[in-house]
């Protein structure tokens, strides 16, 4: 169990570092390079540097909101059932 923890932790560390470095270069450092520089071939068009996080943010908030909604509905249903059992 400790080994799988370490492997998962290591994967998360690696992903976080790669995402941060790639996105920093893409959003902040690329405009400093000449338009003809070969470095631009490694990155998609820069408008995606804004669309991608915006999309992920909206989807993430929707997922969180849906989960909270489900939980509230389930709890209310359980409470209603309990009240019904007590008065039955």
């Amino acid at each position, binding site marked *: *169990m*400790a080994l799988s*923890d*370490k492997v*998962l*932790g*290591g*994967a*998360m*560390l*690696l*992903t*976080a*570092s790669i*995402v*941060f470095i790639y*996105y*920093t270069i893409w*959003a*902040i450092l690329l*405009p*400093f390079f000449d338009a003809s520089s070969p470095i631009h071939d490694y990155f998609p068009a*820069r408008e995606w*540097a*804004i669309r991608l*996080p*915006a999309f992920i*943010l909206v989807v993430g908030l929707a997922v969180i909101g849906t989960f909270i909604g489900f939980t509230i509905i389930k709890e209310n249903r359980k409470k209603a059932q309990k009240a019904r059992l007590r008065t039955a």
Partner: protein
Amino acid sequence: MARAHRLATIVAVLTSLYALLFFVILPVPFVHEDVAVKVLPTIPWWALVTFGSYALWSMGWGLWTFRDCPDAFEELMGEIAEAKNDLRAKGVTVD
């Protein structure tokens, strides 16, 4: 409350500084204007991505450096089962 105040102050200062630079009220020093125009709109999204990466890194670090103790785990599971049975015997709905 002091920590929240400090964080709120820092966020307010940085946000106003960013607004000043974004609406070109202050020029960005050492950087050519066309480059600044391309970089500044991405800064809030970069902050969001940085926060997400930091959160992921922090969780990964916690997992990597977690000190596992299997004996304490077994003992704790036993105690939980004991407590559950005890409560069930007394009429509390458990799990």
